[in-house]
Each structure stands twice: as C-alpha cells, then as structure tokens.
C-alpha cells in the first residue's frame, strides 16, 4: 500500500462508515415513525398557534375599528351640532351634546403588532398585554388595565397550549436523546465497535462522524418540517427582517439540538450500557427541562418577590380620590395662573360634567393623581423589571430556559417586547395628550375637523440583537463544556473491557 493510498484510506473508510450509519438509521422503522409523529406534532402546533394568533389579531383589529367608529360617530354628531341641529342629539343615549364636544371623550386603542413568528409562542403571548385603552385622562399606569382582564379559561391556560415553543423545548430533546442514547453503547454491546476501532481512522473522527450523521438524520427532516410548517401557517417571510428571524430560529434549534446530542455523546463515552445511558439521559432531561426551570423560578420569586399589584391598584385609586377631593382647588389654582383666560362653567352657568370647567377639573385631577402616584408606580415597575433582569440572568443556568427565551423573543412574546410596547404606548399617550390638552386648558370644544388630526400610533420594530446573542450564548456554553468533557472522557474510553 503506497503512502498516497494510505492517506486516501481514512476518508474512504469514514465515508463507508457514514453511509452505513445513514443506512442503518433509515432502515430503523422506529426512527421513521418518530420523525413522522414529530412532523405531525409540529404542523399541529403551528396550526393551533396560527388559530390563536388570528384571534389575538382580530381582537386588536376590532378594538381599533371600534375606536375609529366611535370617532366617526362623534364627527357625525359634531357636524349636526355645528349645523345648529344640536337639540336633535339630546335624547340619544350615551351621546350627550357636551360630551361629543369634550376633548376628554375621544379614545385610542393602540395594539401590539405581531411579529412574523408570533404563532410559535401562544403560551407566552397569552400573558402579554396586546391592547391599550386610552383617553386623555387615562392614567399612564392604567393604560393596560383592560388588557389585564381576560375571558380565557384559566383552567386550560394553567395546563398550557401545545405550542411550538413547548414542542421544541421539551419534546425535541426527547426525540434527539431517544435516537442518540446508544451512539456508542449499542456498538459496544454488539461488539462491532472493536471492528470499527481497528480501521485506519482516528476514533475521534468516527465518533464525531457518527454524532454528526445522527444529527443530520434527525435534524434535517425536523428542520424541514418546521420551515414548511412556518411557510404554510405564517406565510413566506415578507421582509429581510422576517428572513433573518427564520434564520435565527433555525440557528437556535440547531444549537439547542447540538447541546442534547453532545450530552448524549458525553454520557456515551462513559462506556455504560444503553439502558443505563437512557436512564441517565432521561434524568438529565427531567432536570434541565422540568426541575431546574421550576427551581429557578422559585429562586427568582425568593430573591425578587413580585411587587403586589393589589397594593399598587389601591395606591393609584387613593391618589385619585385625594386629587379629586382637592379638585376645586386645582381648578382655582389653574385659573389664578391663567388669569387672562380663566375657565368657567358653561354658558348657562351650570357646572355639570360636560362643562369646560368640569372637563378641566377632570384633566387636572388625572394629572395630579398621576403625578402623586408616579414614585410608587415607577418603583413598582422598577421592581418588576429587576425581577425580569434576574430571570434573564438565571436563564444561563439552563439551556432549556435560554432556548425558550430565544424562541419567545423571536416570536415577540418576551417581556422586553412587552416593555417596548408599553413604552411606545406611553410615548404615544404623550403625543395624544399634546394634541388635546391645549384645547382643555383653553376651555375649547372639539370640532368635527379636529377629529381628523388625532395622532396615530406606530409600533416600533423590535430591538433584540444583543439579547438574542445572549440567549444563544446560554445555549453555547453548556455545549462547549460538554464537548470538552466528552473529548476528555473519550481519551479514557476503552473499546474492550
């Protein structure tokens, strides 16, 4: 055998081994069945996620349409009023002549725009506020109160939907472990590993090749199904950002899968029996997917107890009462400061709810109570985000949590997207108030034309690049560790007893 053919030999042997490995895998009926079940489960999870998302988007659209309709109704009535026919409106329930002119009356329903992959995460999306309810006098801390009331069945939510995040976080690892737990042990048990060991190929390469071929056999079909399912149920990505999201999703799935395969390799190089490997890997799955995330959750609750929302609600309401009890003074103070144009009751001297003075009072009360509660409410929100940050740091302790976090982020169902939505709605509220408050403070009424120029809400694109990289690092470091451990274990690995 010449030197050159000897150099040629390893790749050839390797490719034979690989081909054998692939043939064995494809001949394994149980693998095909498992992949078929996984494919069905993926499509099912996506279909069910798409149905959930349609419901949420319909809700957001409905609220926007209702708000638009209400404004249009105001406009119609205002036009009648401006034409001097106001008296005909008096009897219409809910539409008092003064109220339609009031700058306090128009509302807006800014809604969360879904990201292309939102259908993956119906469980996390379910607890995300997707709609705000806003009038000029709505407290900035109460914008999402309506969104916090839910008609969904708490008993089913407590169990959780079968969404893609669940499938990939909890079930995909089981598929990977089921078909890699005997990576070496099966050949050890059959005695064929010794035959492989005498081939002129480095064992490291053989093991790596076996690992990669298992990965390919399992992951290529799984990823294809996920991509097909997404194209089917989420549509073809319509923008560069959507393609990037899809790419990032696939990268995360591959990295997460690699972690489980490396875990399997590490357990295998210990040279135990297949059933012992299976039991150990099952234990790891249980620990990493079920026990540790729940324990970390306890740790978060222990270290950063959630602030008490009932207490915040009471504080908010107490400041409203205080401000309202001092409402008269608020108006007279305002009129002292604006002596050139004081705001009074309406033309017939009445001071009922739709008079400029009552409207001003409502606004001043809202403003005063909001200012009074701001320190407490801001502290509440700081505590919530501190809890959030702690949780984000702890996710590095569990690849399952990092992966779940990455997927929720890609779906736009994570807390940072929620916080972004809340911040955007508050910015919008500032613009909204900027439009109406000058009219209130001037004692002016709305005109039909004014209602055409109400600022519109725009939901900004997500900012999450660095957070996604951090999620990925949470997946990568355990994989690197396992690769090192497996390599070290492998050096001590003996094919024979």
């Amino acid at each position, binding site marked *: 055998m010449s030197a050159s053919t000897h150099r040629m030999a390893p790749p050839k042997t390797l490719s034979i081994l690989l081909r054998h490995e692939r043939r064995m895998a494809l001949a394994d009926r149980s693998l095909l069945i498992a992949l078929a079940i996984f494919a069905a489960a993926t499509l099912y999870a996506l279909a*069910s996620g798409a149905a959930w998302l349609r419901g949420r988007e319909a809700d957001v659209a409905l609220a926007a349409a209702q708000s638009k309709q209400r404004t249009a109704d105001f406009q119609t009535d205002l036009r009648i009023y401006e034409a001097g026919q106001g008296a005909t409106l008096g009897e219409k329930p809910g539409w008092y002549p003064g109220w339609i002119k009031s700058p306090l009356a128009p509302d807006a329903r800014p809604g969360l725009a879904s990201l292309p992959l939102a259908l993956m995460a119906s469980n996390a999306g379910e*607890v995300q506020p997707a709609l705000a309810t806003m009038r000029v006098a709505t407290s900035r801390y109460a914008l999402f109160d309506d969104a*916090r009331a839910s008609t969904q069945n*708490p008993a089913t939510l407590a169990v959780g939907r079968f969404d893609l995040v669940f499938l990939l976080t909890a079930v995909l690892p089981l598929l990977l472990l089921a078909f890699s737990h005997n990576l070496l042990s099966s050949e050890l048990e059959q005695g064929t590993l010794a035959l492989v060991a005498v081939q002129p190929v480095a064992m490291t390469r053989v093991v790596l090749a076996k690992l990669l071929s298992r990965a390919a056999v399992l992951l290529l079909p799984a990823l294809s199904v996920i991509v097909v399912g997404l194209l089917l149920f989420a549509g073809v990505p319509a923008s560069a950002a959507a393609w990037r999201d899809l790419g990032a999703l696939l990268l995360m799935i591959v990295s997460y899968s690699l972690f489980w395969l490396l875990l399997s390799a590490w357990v295998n190089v210990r040279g135990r029996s297949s059933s012992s490997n299976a039991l150990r890997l099952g234990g790891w799955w249980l620990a990493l997917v079920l026990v540790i*995330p729940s324990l970390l*959750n306890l740790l*978060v609750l222990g270290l950063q107890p959630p602030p008490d929302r009932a207490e915040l609600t009471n504080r908010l309401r107490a400041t409203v009462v205080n401000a309202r009890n001092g409402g008269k003074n608020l108006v007279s103070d305002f009129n002292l400061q604006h002596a050139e144009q004081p705001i009074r009751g309406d033309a017939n001297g009445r001071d009922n709810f739709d008079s400029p003075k009552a409207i001003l009072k409502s606004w001043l009360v809202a403003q005063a109570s909001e200012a009074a509660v701001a320190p407490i409410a801001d502290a509440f929100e700081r505590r919530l985000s501190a809890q959030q940050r702690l949780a984000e740091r702890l996710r590095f302790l569990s690849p399952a949590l990092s992966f779940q976090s990455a997927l929720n982020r890609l779906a736009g169902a994570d807390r940072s997207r929620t916080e972004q939505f809340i911040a955007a709605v508050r910015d919008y509220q500032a613009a909204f108030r900027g439009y109406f408050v000058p009219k209130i403070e001037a004692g002016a009424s709305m005109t039909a034309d004014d209602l055409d120029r109400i600022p519109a809400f725009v939901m900004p694109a997500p900012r999450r690049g660095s957070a996604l990289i951090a999620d990925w690092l949470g997946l990568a470091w355990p994989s690197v560790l396992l690769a090192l451990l497996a390599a070290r274990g492998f050096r001590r690995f003996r094919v024979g007893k």
Partner: protein
Amino acid sequence: MIITIARREILDTWRGGQVRLAGAILIGLLLLALAVGLQHQARADAARKTAQAEDTRIWLSQGKLNPHSAAHFGRYIFKPQGALAFVDEGVNPYAGSAVYLEAHVQTPSRARPADDAALLPVFGELTAALVLQLLVPLLIILVAFAGFSGERENGTFRQLLSVGVTRRALVLGKALGLSASLLAILVPVAVIGSAALLVSGHGAIDLLRLALMSVGYLLYFIAFAGITLAVSARAPSSRQALVVLLGFWLLSSLLLPRLAVDAANHLAPVPTVASFRKVLADDVRNGISGHDAEDARLSSVKAALFKQYGVSRIEDLPINFDGIALSEGERYGALVMDRRYGELWQQYQRQALVQRAFALLTPLLAVKPVSMALAGTDLTVQRDFTEQAERYRRQSIQLINDDYTVNGKLDQWTDDAGGPELWAKVPRFQYVEPSMQAALMPTLPDFALLVLWSGAALGLALWAIRRTSVEI
C-alpha cells in the same frame, strides 16, 4: 407470604442507589414546594386582607362627588387563595385575582399573577401538586419497571413459583411493597402538611380536604403502579418495559393534557376579550333580541312613569329621571351579563368536559380536577367568587342609583349630589367560600375516573401476571 414478598421488595428498592437518590431528591423537592407554597399563601392572604381593607378605606374617603362618578370609580374585590393553595395552586396563576366592580358592566376578573411572572417555566411553578402529579409516577416506574421482567431475567421467577408462591400473592406482595416505599415518602409529607395546616390556623375541614386529596393521589399512584407491574409482567425485557412505561408517562403527563387543551379550545371556543366586550355593549345598546333597543326601553319606562305620576314631561316628575334611567340600564344590563357570562361559563364547562374525556386516556387529567377542587383553587371557586362579587356590584350600584333617583337633580350630574354618608351606606363585601360539599360535587365524576383507573390498572396487573411466562 405477601408480607414477605413486600418486605423483600422494600429491601430491594432501598438498596438501589439510583432509586434512593431519586427518592431523596423527590422528598426534597416536595418539602421545598410545600414550604414555599405555605409561605406564599400566608403572604398572599395577608396582602389580600390589607388590600381589601384599603379598598374600603379609599371608598369611604371619597368626598363630595356625583354618585354616578363614584359608581364608575367603583370597587375592587380581591380573591382569596383557596384553603390548600399551598399544595395545588390550580387555576390561580391564570385566574384574575381581582374583580373590578363599576357601573353598567360586569368586567372579567383581572390581574392574573402569570401576567407579572418573570419566568414561565414550561411545566409551571414548582408546587407540591407538580411533584405529586408528574414526578412521583416517574419514581414509581423507576422502582417497579423491572418488578417481574427482572425476576424473569434473573431466573428467580421460576424459583419463586417452584417454592409455592402464587402469582396472585406475588402481584399483591409487590404492589404492597411498592405502596410501602411510596408511603415512606408520602406519609411524612402528609404529616408535615397537616402540621403546617394546623399551625397556620386552618381548621378541621381543611384537614379533611387534605385527607381526601391524599386519597385522590393514592388512587393516582395505584393506577401508575398497576400499569407498571402489568407492563413489567408482559414486556419481553426490563429495557422494553422501561421504554413502554416512559412512553406512557410522556403521553400521559406531557402530550395528552396539552392536546386536551387544544381540543377543548377547538370544540368549545371562548371569545377573546375585545369581542366579548363588544357583544356585551351591543346587547345593551340594541337589546338582546336586537328588537329592544336602549332608547325604546327607556321610552317605555318613561311612559309608564308619566302615567304613574300623571305628568307629561320628565322635568315634572317628582323623582330624578336620570337615576331611573341608570337603574333601568342596570336592570337590563343584568339580563345581558347573566346571559353572556352564563354562556362563557358554559364554554368553560364544556372545555372541562373535553378534558374529562381525555381523562379516559390519562389519569393525570382525572387527578388534576380532584386536587384543585380539594385545594379550593379550581374553576368552581373562581366562578363562585366572581358571581358573589357581581351580586355585590349590583346591590351596591342599585343602592347608589336609588339614592340618586331620590336626591339627584335631573340633567345636573353635579358633584355635590353625593357624599360620605352615601358611601357609608354601601355594605361591605364578605366572600363566603363554597362549602366543601358544594366544591366537591362537580368533581365526583373525576373521582370516579380515578377509582376506575386504579381498579383497571390493578386488574390489568393481575391479568398480566397470570398470563406471563416463566421463561425469558
């Protein structure tokens, strides 16, 4: 004989290092979950009492105000945790913990704890229920999967039969041994749980709840033990027995419960919150039938009043027509709310039925409702609470509207029409938790399913061992 077999089983179990480790971890998790749960429940109950008292104080601290504005300002009612929430938090994380009561409408309960949770672990919070429902069955499988297949593989099965051990005695002995091992874990936990209950001021009723809950879980474990022994008896090897049993656990604990949720959502859809609110508003405005619009309803009330008082203008009425209009709105609103919320709860119930149907496939879905009902954290309590809150809302608003009818001035809506005397007239809300009987009745079928599961599983084990062969 049975006792001897059982004793040997216990010894075998105890000798296994993996089982001992798993058992120790399990006890640790269970105790941790109970301790944290107790602390959490105590804190939540204290916070709720403070919050409820504070709501009353705020309500009474309102100065002069138009009664209708006060009705819109409304009240908040906070929900108690449930007697044994520290064992099983049930629907609590996803059920509104507060009900906002305001004029005109019944709003869905709000402030779900899960909305503020920083982490949403795939399997929920670590509670005793999670350990009992998901992890203990795994331990049972781990302890007993080789129960018969192992004897066969070691050749000891033949020996046992040859010295006159009957198959029936073997099954019962092994089941007894398994139960003893489990009880060694569960009894200390139950004792600690009961002690904690008594120390934290719970009564005898709650102890009874805990006892019944233990029965429920015991039936659940028996179901798993029976299935494990049956599979162990029939499987060609211990390894295959383990694969089948883990597959069953996976299906029963992981996949079927969530598939049941999806099926329930599909078969009994629940409206989203914005569409539900729209339905309520449309019903109030246009009438439930669509032929009974708000203004027409009001006109007929007006006509009746004109007739009663012999006047022809609302200004001439001796009472404030605005108050009458508000009361009429509430009267009709109550019809709408009863109907639409009734439909909503009916959908929840249908969803529960779908889940119960799945309980024929997985015992987890049979033990879950039993556990929640006994913990006082199920939908029955949630419904009872929201309904009591709604009755209280109607009462309070009616009182305020009646006052406005007598004391308010037509079309004025001024802030001097109401004051502290009126706020003080509104009674306090006192939630009366449903009796244990009322709480348990709806879950009797689930209890029956548990009995069925455990009976069938034991029967299966007996059948399997009678038919199992001595040879490998």
